[in-house]
């Protein structure tokens, strides 16, 4: 059987799904014989390849860089899998969606940056957040299928290793994975 | 006078002024009309709103006890129906009709202009407490679209300019209006 090319990526997520992927233990070795991982946080490749057969996308689409990337991923992958709850429901990254971006940033990077007593004047800084070097946060973190068409959904936070393995095995065998009963939201 | 047979644990109202007594009498009268039965709730709330201008929390407690309706049910009814308001209204009220004919006739633009010029959206009151803006579903004055109600008086064939002028006069103490 010809090897398939695989890419994995994480957008706005905690990398927990990738940890679960690694949790396949020795089964990972079997898998390695059947797939080429061309691009992943786990391998050293900085540029998304021109073409991959399967891409697992972890995380929600949360900033302008994610938006660009997800479009490239869709264009250059035959199969896109929404990998884990953040990619499917926006999950924890989506919990900020109820608040304006400015309020979220203020809270995270200014109010909580140092305990109040350690701040010079005990007041939050009035300087805003600069986006010169980091991507601009979108108004909301969104599930990836709201941005691009997605072929398969693998829910779970994280999806259990056996569900990941099942999905890849079915794809390798050219079958359509039936995820029913393998995992669930928040698993 | 409280009707007989009401809940003995009825929450006492705060000390009332003579004017408030009168308003309370109106409320009691409506409740008695329905023999203090729960089905008089909506009519009673209408009377409360007419007499007090809005549904004050102490009155809601009082009505709940008198009609023997659970507190949460009273609150549920008060918020289910759009005629009732839980916030004190401004000195003047401007109701813009959003019925179909008025919408086609441009009531949306009127609301937009009020928001732009006066700075209040539907359900809001100006900071000086002078003017409240409300929307009506349909005043039934479709023949005169777009229509509105200014302090209880229905006026038809409105334009944003007419409405803004009226509100402006309210805000600036024009004695004639």
């Amino acid at each position: 059987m010809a090897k398939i090319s695989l890419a994995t990526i994480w957008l706005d997520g905690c990398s927990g799904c990738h940890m679960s992927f690694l949790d396949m233990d020795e089964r990972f070795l079997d898998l390695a014989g059947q797939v080429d991982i061309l691009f992943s946080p786990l391998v050293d490749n900085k540029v998304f390849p021109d073409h991959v057969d399967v891409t697992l996308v972890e995380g929600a689409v949360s900033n302008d860089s994610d938006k660009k990337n997800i479009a490239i991923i869709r264009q250059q992958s035959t199969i896109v899998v929404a990998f884990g709850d953040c990619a499917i429901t926006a999950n924890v990254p989506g919990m900020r969606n109820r608040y304006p971006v400015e309020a979220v940033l203020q809270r995270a990077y200014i109010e909580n940056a140092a305990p109040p007593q350690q701040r010079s004047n005990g007041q939050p800084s009035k300087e805003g957040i600069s986006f010169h070097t980091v991507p601009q946060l979108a108004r909301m973190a969104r599930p990836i299928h709201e941005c691009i068409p997605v072929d398969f959904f693998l829910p779970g936070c994280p999806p259990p290793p056996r569900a990941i393995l099942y999905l890849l095995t079915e794809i390798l065998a050219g079958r359509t994975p039936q995820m029913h009963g393998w995992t669930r939201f928040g698993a | 006078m409280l009707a007989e047979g009401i809940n003995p644990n009825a929450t006492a109202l705060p000390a009332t002024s003579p004017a408030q007594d009168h308003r309370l009498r109106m409320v009691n009268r409506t409740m008695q009309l329905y023999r203090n039965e729960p089905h008089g709730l909506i009519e009673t709330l209408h009377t409360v709103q007419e007499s007090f201008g809005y549904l004050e929390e102490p009155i809601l407690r009082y009505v709940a006890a008198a009609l023997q309706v659970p507190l949460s049910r009273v609150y549920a009814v008060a918020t289910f129906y759009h005629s009732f308001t839980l916030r004190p209204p401004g000195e003047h009220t401007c109701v813009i009709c959003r019925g179909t004919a008025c919408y086609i006739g441009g009531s949306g633009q009127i609301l937009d202009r009020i928001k732009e010029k006066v700075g209040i959206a539907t359900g809001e009151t100006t900071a000086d407490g002078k003017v409240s803006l409300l929307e009506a579903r349909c005043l039934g004055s479709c023949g005169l679209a777009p229509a509105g109600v200014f302090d209880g008086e229905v006026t038809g064939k409105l334009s944003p300019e007419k409405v803004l002028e009226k509100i402006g006069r309210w805000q600036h103490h024009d004695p004639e209006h």
Partner: protein
Amino acid sequence: MTLNIEDLQQIARIEKSKKDGFQHRINVCLAAGCLSCGSGLIKEALEKEVTRRGLDSWCKITGVGCLGLCAEGPLLSLPTSGSYYQGVQVSDVPEILDSLNGSPVARLVCPAETPFFQRQVRIVTENCGRIDPERIEEYIAEDGYAGLYQALTQMTPQEIIDQVSGSGLRGRGGAGYPTGLKWMSMAKAMGSTKFIICNGDEGDPGAFMDRSVLESDPHRVIEGMVIAGYATGANQGFIYVRAEYPLAVKRLRLALSQAERMGMIGNNIFNTSFHFNLQVRLGAGAFVCGEETALIASIEGRMGRPRPRPPFPVEFGLWDHPTMINNVETLANIAPIIRRGSQWFAGIGTEKSKGTKVFALAGKVVNTGLIEIPMGTSLRDIVFAIGGGIPQGGRFKAVQTGGPSGGCIPEQFLDMPVDYDSLAQVGSIMGSGGMIVMDASSCMVDVARFFMEFCMSESCGKCVPCRVGTRQIYDILGKITASRATMAEFTMLEDLCDLIKNTSLCGLGQSAPNPVLTTLKYFRDEYLAHIHDRQCLAGACKKAEEVL
């Protein structure tokens, strides 16, 4: 006090001779439309001027109900000469009185030989604009309560139901259920306590027929209810009216106390053993309370949330007793049917839709106002002949009937007869009778969005498809009008409409997608233009700034 037929006739005679004693009569429209143009002041001025000139016994000023042509208010009618005045101002008063013996004031004359007046057939509104709604005597003088007398003293309940069935009258509130059948099942319902409810919760935006009838001729509705009570074995009635209609409420309450005083309601009506009590109940601003089970909940003092049917209210209604709910206009048809017989009524209208229908004509049409026409009149006649066409040379685009549960009917169906079945065939409904005309300047997607906003904020929130689905549809329509939607969202729109239509709990939810479905069907190109070409064909929608 209990009257007999002689008393009734006596009252009518006195009233008529009083009327005939005046050389001239001027009727001033005091329905809400004209009142808001200042007709109250005009009536006052007329009365003052008449007294000042010492003409009190020569000219009679009467405040009457709706004259119909609301667009040209304030309206006066001069029954003695048969002419109408429009757009009257207080300053015109002396001139009007001066001209009573001569030729009418030309600049105020409202041409009465127009189709607007001549094409109408008035049954429900026969007294509107002709009698003072605040005086029961005037109603009696127009054969008022004669139908009730006849029903109570000469007919059995079954005979009345047979008359109503034979007339072919169908419910005027929307769905068009045969009234006779409803009365029959109510008469058969088990129970010693039964209720009749008059549904005057006219919540459709763009409809004001019921308001006009209640304001202009409240006794007719009361008479219809008492007859209904006798025919079906109910002794208690409720008239549920929107709180937004204070004038209608006031006149109804007045009419009730008059009817009570004369013994048309209460105990031993017309010396028979029949009792009937009637109360007015106020709505509080909830469209969903037009739904029967929600209306019942509201009268019981609860939130107006519908419950699943069956069981239907005729079995389990108000306080679990059999309850029959009829619309204002339906009940207003009853007395004439009893008086003149079912055959007369069945001779008007089309094969399956009998009688007349009152429409509130509004929107982009010259003669906005209240009209009553025989069933089967074509849309073209309504809009162009009676309505006078589109103002300012505009181009007709669609007519919306049935309010938020109805649909938009395009030009190609203009020659369609207006009856229950034809309207249903093109995806709309008769509804309670709102008819909004739209011209080329209205964007149909925006219109659909307007109605969806209505359904969303009027959804009671009980069942999931209506509560959340209307919001999702509204969001998509908002995106389309802002030219930001994709084809995927367009597909989702159709899918959601289908979901809500098929799975919602009550009629409001099930019909909520109708405005979207009909515009999708007849004005699909407008939707697609917003999506593909990012433009609004009607030029009505503002384009949102491109988002990242």
